[in-house]
């Protein structure tokens, strides 16, 4: 009973903070817009403009533009101590490409970005084709799309239980996958510990999440392929596979590119899954996780910044390509 009342004290205190925060925000924005409304004739245009774009621009300049520049600079300096830090030129990058641990991290990131988009797109496309115009399409879509709604940490816990390992003879298996192995007469595996395959078992989690995303986009694209063309190819004697390969796939090429690039971007930045499932141990770390470990657990701001810069350089070309394809698609429509 006592625990409960402590909970309510805590509850009202925090919601109090929230309402003060919301009220303060509303007051500031309201005041800015009110002043813009009542601005003197002289310079009114500029004041009104400043009122509308100013807040966003200031926040972006302080919180994104300046930090991005600063991180790039920090990547060329040693770790920050009380005595400041030294300019080390490319030492942080040399460290990255000579440390065996970090090389594994970089390699893992490449494995992730090669496998996750490919597998998610294949599963998503196959599923979208299978359920197209079938009975209960909506429900079948919901089931596979659902993992998109939940957090990566939640997904990590769900799969920790799937992979859980118990020593033989010590107790029954509580993880479904190991139980299946036992049923098949095999010995159970420590899926998340045994390198290098543990990385693949982490990748399964990301594929599980991203397949739903691929499926929803591709399903919409498939419905956009004109029925007349499919009909014509059928009259020409094309079988289901030929129809799919020669009519459907060319018809959805743009969407396929968007799906693959979008999932690639998400995969390069993956952090939570690795953090929650292995913490980056057992040779499973990826760049985003290593960046956090170096910068915030070990205080190695130089190494952390250098890793962030590498991540930026890997993501940038894909984002640019992704945006260009998306815009082209929009023009066609």
């Amino acid at each position, binding site marked *: 009973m006592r625990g*409960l009342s402590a909970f309510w004290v805590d509850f009202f205190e925090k*919601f109090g*903070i*929230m309402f003060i925060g*919301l009220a303060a*925000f509303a007051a500031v*924005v309201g005041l800015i817009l009110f002043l813009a*409304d009542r601005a003197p004739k002289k310079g009114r245009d500029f004041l*009104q403009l400043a009122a*509308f*774009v100013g807040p*966003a621009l200031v*926040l972006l300049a*302080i*919180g*994104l*533009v300046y*930090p*991005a520049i*600063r*991180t790039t600079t920090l990547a060329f300096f040693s770790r920050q101590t009380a005595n400041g830090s030294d300019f080390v030129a490319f030492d942080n990058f040399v460290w990255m490409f000579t440390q065996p641990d970090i090389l594994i991290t970089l390699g893992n990131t490449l494995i992730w970005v090669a496998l996750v988009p490919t597998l998610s797109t294949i*599963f998503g496309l196959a599923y979208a084709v*299978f359920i197209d115009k079938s009975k209960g399409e909506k429900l*079948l879509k919901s*089931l*596979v799309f659902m993992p998109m*709604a939940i*957090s*990566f*940490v*939640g997904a990590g*816990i769900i799969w920790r*239980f799937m992979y859980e390992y118990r020593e033989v003879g010590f*107790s029954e298996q*509580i993880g*479904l996958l190991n*139980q299946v192995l036992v049923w098949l007469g095999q010995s159970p595996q420590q899926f998340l510990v045994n390198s290098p395959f543990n990385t693949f078992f982490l990748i399964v989690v990301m594929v599980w999440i991203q*397949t*739903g*995303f691929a499926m929803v986009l591709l399903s*919409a694209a498939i*419905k*956009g392929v004109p029925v007349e063309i*499919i009909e014509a190819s059928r009259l020409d004697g094309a079988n289901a596979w030929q129809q799919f390969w020669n009519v459907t796939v060319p018809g959805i090429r743009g969407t396929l590119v*968007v799906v693959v690039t979008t999932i690639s*971007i*998400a995969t390069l*930045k993956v*952090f*939570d899954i690795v*953090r929650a*499932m292995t913490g980056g141990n057992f040779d499973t770390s990826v760049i985003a996780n290593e960046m*956090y470990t170096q910068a915030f657990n070990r205080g190695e701001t130089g190494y952390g910044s250098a890793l*962030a810069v590498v*991540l*930026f350089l890997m993501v940038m070309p894909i984002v*640019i390509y*992704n945006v260009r394809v998306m815009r082209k698609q*929009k023009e066609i*429509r």
Partner: protein
Amino acid sequence: MSTDAATAAENALDAPLGQKHEAATREPQKMRKVKQTLTSPWATFAAILIATLWTIPTFGLLVSSIRTPTEIRSNGWWNIFVSPSFTLQNYIDVLTVQGTSSANLGSYFVNSLVIAIPAALFPIILATMAAYAFAWIKFRGSGALFVLIFALQIVPLQMALIPLLQIFSEILGISGTFPAVWIAHTIFGLPLCIFLLHNFISEIPGEVIEAARVDGANHTQIFFRIVIPLSLPALASIGIFQFLWVWNDLLVALVFSGGTADVAPLTQRLAELVGNFGRNTERLPAAAFISLIVPLIVFFSLQRYFVRGLLAGSTKG
């Protein structure tokens, strides 16, 4: 007039990703014919197989969460079909029992709400204002500035974390408080929100805005009387996306919340609990479901807005 404009603009919001079902408008007879040729029993079988495989992991966790702690530890969740059992004790334990070694999720749940509500509202409001200015106020350099903001989406969160934390802790002294997390999420959400809302607000018919101007309305009045009411569907989609993004986020929370029960959200506590899997085995299923319940409710009740917002915002982070 205004509802027409809203529908048109809403369609425009859907267009870039094409998730509207265009097939619905076609002749039903042709549809039926094609349908027969495309559905085969094998395809249906494969679809059901995939759907089952995709659902089992979540279903298993849900089943685990209603078994007794001893059962969770001693055998797998599928045994519930042999020896049925049901208890809500795990949920009560992780939510209400307080103390340093308990899960204490009640507090963290409150934190998640207190973080996510303002962190969804702030960027949406600021972005709507900026998007209106970029779409309907003519000024020099507006195009270049907009492209710059758009380009900021390229910058991964990781690039901003270290310097922003230094600003929060050394200059503002707010590191580890709710405002720090709100401001961080607001900043990271802005580029995408501005971009998406600009797409939407620029589709509002020029005559509507022009008519208001002729009647003597200034920007503030146009903003409140025309732009906001017409943008409500877009604001809902993007707001839901931003809310869930914040709710599900771990990285920003780890860096800016300080990691205690005073501020840190559910995801942060879950990551801690799963880090000591052996000790927390019986708590984790219920704990995970408490964090999943909000996204799942949103997902099943607001699916249309949810899917649209999620697809539009999929490159964020």
